[in-house]
């Protein structure tokens, strides 16, 4: 049995997909999500084997979502969409399959075969993913989109990953690893990313440690390991 996650912004589309997947007898539906943010949470929690993913969704579309998922958690991806203008792009993005709504039973059976073959090979898919243009953050139930250029630094703690910008501190579902690879933010500590464009000064401490002062006056620690990288980057 394959664990499937359904992501679609239309309620009946999710229901229909769930019913059809159940009818094949090959899937356990691990969850249904109405948007990319819900999907990010569910992927981390449920670790599904396969994503049935709609392309057109509010704020963050299907392609953008793929760029925000950690590589070790990345499931196989089957795009499910109403119109085939994205088919080519979907395959360029390494999608396993591409289904058109309304989905035909026979066509879904072929997808099952493809999935089984892929799992037999045992390879995890890799998505190049676009650079992240806006970081989705939660702010009292609302979604706030923050451009990476506005971010001063990002910190990770037991409570999760927080993006700090002049407007305040915001929780995000994205991991440090994804933010490091898909935005221009630089790692300066195991738990911190820094925006090099918003650095005010670097205060060197003893034992090859340092603190970075950002333009709005926050202090961000730099660990020994990353100070070397930072020096190379900034030529000091």
């Amino acid at each position, binding site marked *: 049995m394959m664990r499937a996650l359904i992501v679609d*912004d*239309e*309620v*009946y*589309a999710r229901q229909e997909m769930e019913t059809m997947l159940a009818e094949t007898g090959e899937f356990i539906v691990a969850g249904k999500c109405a948007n990319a943010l819900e999907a990010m949470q569910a992927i981390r929690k449920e670790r599904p084997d396969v994503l049935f993913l709609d392309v057109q969704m509010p*704020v963050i579309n299907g392609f953008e979502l793929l760029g925000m998922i950690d590589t070790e958690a990345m499931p196989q991806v089957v795009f499910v969409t*109403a*119109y085939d203008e994205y088919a080519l792009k979907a395959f360029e993005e390494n999608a396993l399959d591409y289904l058109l709504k309304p989905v035909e039973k026979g066509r879904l059976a072929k997808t099952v075969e493809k999935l089984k073959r892929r799992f037999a090979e045992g390879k995890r898919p890799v998505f190049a993913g676009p650079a992240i243009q806006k970081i989705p953050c939660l702010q009292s139930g609302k979604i706030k989109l923050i451009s990476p250029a506005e971010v001063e630094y990002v910190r990770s703690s037991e409570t999760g990953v927080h993006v700090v910008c002049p407007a305040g501190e915001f929780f995000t579902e994205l991991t440090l690893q994804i933010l490091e690879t898909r935005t221009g933010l630089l790692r300066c500590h195991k738990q911190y990313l820094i925006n090099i464009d918003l650095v005010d000064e670097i205060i060197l401490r003893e034992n090859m440690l340092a603190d970075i002062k950002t333009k709005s006056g926050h202090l961000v620690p730099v660990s020994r390991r990353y100070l070397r990288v930072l020096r190379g980057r900034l030529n000091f």
Partner: protein
Amino acid sequence: MEILFRMTQAMSVFVVVAYICCKSPLLRSLTADAVRARDRVYLYLVFSALSILGTYLGVPVHDAIANTRAIGPVLAGIIGGPLIGTAVGFTGGLHRYFLGGFTAFSCGLSTTVEGAIGGMVHLYLYRRNRSERIFAPEVAFITAFCAEIVQMGIILLVSRPFANAVTLVEVIALPMILSNAAGAALFMSIIRDQKNTVDRIGAVSSAKAFKIAERTLNILVRGITAESAVALAKIIHTETGVGSVAITDKEKILAFLGQGADHHIPGNPIASSFTKEAIAENKVIFAADGKERYVCPLAADCPMTSVLVVPLHIDNDVIGTIQLFEPRNKRFLNMNKTLGEGIARLLSNQLLLARYEMQKNLLVQSELKLLQAQVNPHFLFNSLNTIIAILRIDAARCKDLLIHLSNFFRKNLKRAGDLSTLAEELDQVNSYLQIEKARFDDRLAIDVDIDPSLLKVILPTFTLQPLVENAFKHGISQTMGQAVARIKAFRADGWAFVEIEDNAGIFHEKETDDGHGIKIVDRRLKGLFGSDSGISIACVPHELTRVTVKIPLEAQAA
């Protein structure tokens, strides 16, 4: 005293000559504001001749001549500038020099100087931006007055024996200064009057032309038809006052107004060879008394004997003619001839404009058809997908949705040029909303509030639907949380308003396809109801986008 009297006599002859000169075409250029090279030559010749004439009309006094020679150079200078003034003065002076006498040289020299003085006055006025003073008689009087005083000075300085010069000046100074100054002033006032007359005639005919232009503008929007031709002929007939006016297309008479209307009947084919020639060769034909006079081919007792035929054209294709007729006992005025040609040119331009407007409208229509034909495939397939899902749980609702879907598409196929009532527009919008409501069942609220007294309001078909679709495409479908779509119709201050609002608050400033769609809807509303009607957009980021349609209620009475 006698000299003054005789000089006044001479000056009068001189002024009569001046009057005749002014009336002749030779001096017409004087009355024009811009002096061209050819006009300068005329100016030189005429005033040189006047200067020489002034010498001959002079009175012999003490071996010298009391004269009005100075008027020519002074006026030539004031009107034409220092170069012409000096040239005229030199010519007049040279002539005087060869007549001899003890003042031959001093008079020749002083005449040249007087021309130059006139020229200086011209330059002074021109540089002070007061060139309208050039034709003022006072200026001519003062200039000639001063120039003559200078002349007397030169005679005293240059002429020998000095004693003779003094005696001469004592006798001639007063009469010459006064008569030359008065002559110059009189001459100038004649020129000015002539100039004013020309200006007035020009003003009258431009006023007529403008009036015709203004009155014909609306008539020609629909091109030349039998009805618009009659209206047009009426305007031209009253404004020009000619005997009769005809308008034809390339084959037949469209309208005929005035004398001879009994046998020049609209609808009949063109009979006159002049008209045929004008159409075939695309040229203006004028036939008046004389060899080429107009003879009516239809009736022997037709009173018309002169005609102006002007072709009307769009680009270079002749599409018809305008004809102005005058009867035997009335001269065909030159002014009406020019006016007739001008009107035809104006109408041709207006026709070109009308054609351009028509093509622009066609373009809007076809753009709209294209917009309508572009059924959003996402909407279609997602709707079908939703209906299939609902089929599993609620067959009755599924049936309703399919009926809404077919209603929506049927309305979409309606012709774009038609008008609809608000009720009909809302019917299509409602079908669309029912389907969208099903698609986003869990997170969409729809709020429709329509003043029922507005349901009969007429508006262009396919006004609301694109706006509602737009609200979904860029608003509702872009929000993650609870979405709200509001449609409200109400009346205020004699207008009907329809508001379409979403709570996404995403406004796209840049030109998208949909922005183009809104523009088309706006243009159609303005085209139908005038520029105060149309569409306005308000956006509060992250809160709402509101598109408002404004329609005048008084236009609805008809």
